């Protein structure tokens, strides 16, 4: 049986979505002339500022294009659903974002994205634009601790992009922007849980099978299998299981500060996210870790998948300053 979706044509979903987004956010966003899959911040790029280009497959909205705006990313390259954009729109983003001080490419660590962004970086070099790449690898479930560089980038993108975008906005040097971007990634940890599958608009078939009473801890944002499947547990039990893994890796001391993101994978409602956040706060209180800021909602979705993720960013003074720095994007504002 096909899943139900409000669409016109499964092959046109990305382009029709972009039309709708540009219609809704004309003050923040524009697409490149001749490269409609390159979305640019209207008042982002400027001379002397390190440019920040993000991007990846569609289906994760508001990731990526929702985080394009002044103080965050200068441009986003948009791929097909769950598929990396090709090099051309990425290159156009790099040109638009370049203010002569270098361009950072930041995106989740997936084989396809790496190939396409690397090809775009080689092409940008021929146009005398220096590109450096910082991959996000916040998904604790996707590889063991000693193979952090193999992990996927998921909802923690939001914190990592935010910190890097603030560094660029503050007109820091290319070296400094890159250092802060890497540090933000190193300090960010995410765990997810999936309850029911999503379906691609082209197939409208569930992209994995899961029993009506089952959940899968650690599932990826494209339905990649996670680390354990089991019976659906209570919100507190699920949250504890995810938080245990995160806290174990993050190893915060009493008195440390974190930022919290409770993210819906698509169809899990705010009610359930806030129930999870209640537990996160209780547990952090127990270990003497204070919450500097909390975001709850849809930040990195997986179409209509049911489930959620918990992300903590381990803050120091510098990362806290970056998170607090104002930004004004189509789908996110701070300060």
């Amino acid at each position: 049986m096909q899943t139900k979706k409000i669409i016109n044509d499964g092959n046109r979903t990305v382009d029709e979505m972009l039309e709708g987004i540009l219609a809704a956010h004309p003050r923040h966003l524009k697409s490149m002339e001749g490269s409609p899959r390159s979305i640019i911040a209207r008042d982002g790029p400027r001379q002397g500022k390190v440019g920040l280009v993000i991007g990846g497959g569609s289906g994760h909205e508001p990731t990526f294009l929702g985080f394009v705006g002044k103080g965050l990313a200068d441009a986003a390259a948009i791929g097909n659903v769950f598929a990396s954009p090709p090099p051309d729109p990425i290159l156009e983003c790099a040109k638009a974002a370049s203010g002569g001080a270098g361009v950072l490419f930041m995106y989740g660590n997936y084989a396809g994205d790496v190939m396409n962004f690397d090809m775009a970086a080689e092409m940008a070099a021929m146009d005398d634009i220096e590109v450096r790449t910082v991959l996000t690898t916040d998904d604790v479930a996707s590889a063991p601790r000693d193979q952090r560089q193999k992990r996927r980038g998921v909802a923690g993108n939001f914190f990592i992009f935010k910190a890097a975008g603030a560094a660029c906005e503050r007109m820091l040097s290319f070296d400094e922007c890159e250092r802060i971007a890497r540090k933000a990634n190193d300090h960010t940890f995410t765990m997810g849980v999936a309850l029911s599958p999503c379906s691609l608009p082209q197939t409208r078939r569930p992209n994995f099978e899961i029993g009506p009473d089952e959940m899968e801890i650690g599932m990826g944002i494209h339905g990649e299998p996670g680390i354990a499947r089991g019976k659906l547990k209570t919100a507190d039990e699920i949250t504890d299981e995810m938080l245990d893994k995160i806290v174990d890796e993050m190893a915060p001391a009493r008195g440390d500060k974190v930022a919290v993101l409770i993210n819906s994978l698509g169809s899990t409602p705010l009610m359930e996210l806030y129930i999870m956040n209640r537990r996160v706060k209780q547990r952090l209180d127990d270990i003497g870790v204070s919450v500097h800021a909390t975001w709850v909602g849809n930040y990195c979705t997986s179409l209509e998948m049911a489930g959620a993720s918990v992300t903590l960013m381990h803050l120091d003074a510098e990362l806290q300053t970056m998170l607090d720095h104002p930004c004004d994007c189509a789908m996110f504002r701070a300060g």
Partner: protein
Amino acid sequence: MTSIDAADLKRMFDAIAVAIEADKDRLCQLDGVIGDADHGIAMALGFGAVRDALAPLELTATEPTVLLNTAAKSFLNAVGASSGPLYATAFMRGAAAVKGKATLAGADVVALFQAMAQGIQDRGKAEIGEKTMVDAWLPAAQAAAAAHAAGKTLSESLAAALEAAERGAEATKDMIAAKGRSSRLGERSLGHIDPGAASAVTVIGAMRKSLA
């Protein structure tokens, strides 16, 4: 004496597009088991774009190299993903391998085939045994070269390539993925054929049928 020109290559790409379109659902299902279920979509999109890009070419005035580069660019820009850079690199390397030739002899087609496989391996940085399309493409290229060196016809050489690709794809069932999205599965990827290797068999099968 084999003589493959741009019109033959266009027919080959058309045949690949038809074969992949027919195979789309199976490829998505294979990908759904160990990946994100979109491999058939990406491949069909890519070869559909190639067909559309080649359609307006004036074939009598087009060298194989130009046709292959057109195929590369259209595939890449339609798809992105992993298969975009991999197949685009394959076609660009194939284009470079036959540069300056108006028609291709059997030896040229075998060289083109080998360049394609090498391009895929270079772009994806995968080795044999890592459960990727390289496990089909590399043995296929080696088999085609060996058959050609042993004096076989192009048709026989491509048949040998297809057999080797089929064996290679089948062997991915017993491999633990070491590259790409499924590499995060570890042993859970065992027992499942790699969708990229499966589609490589479909592509090579269509090439053999069309060029034979």
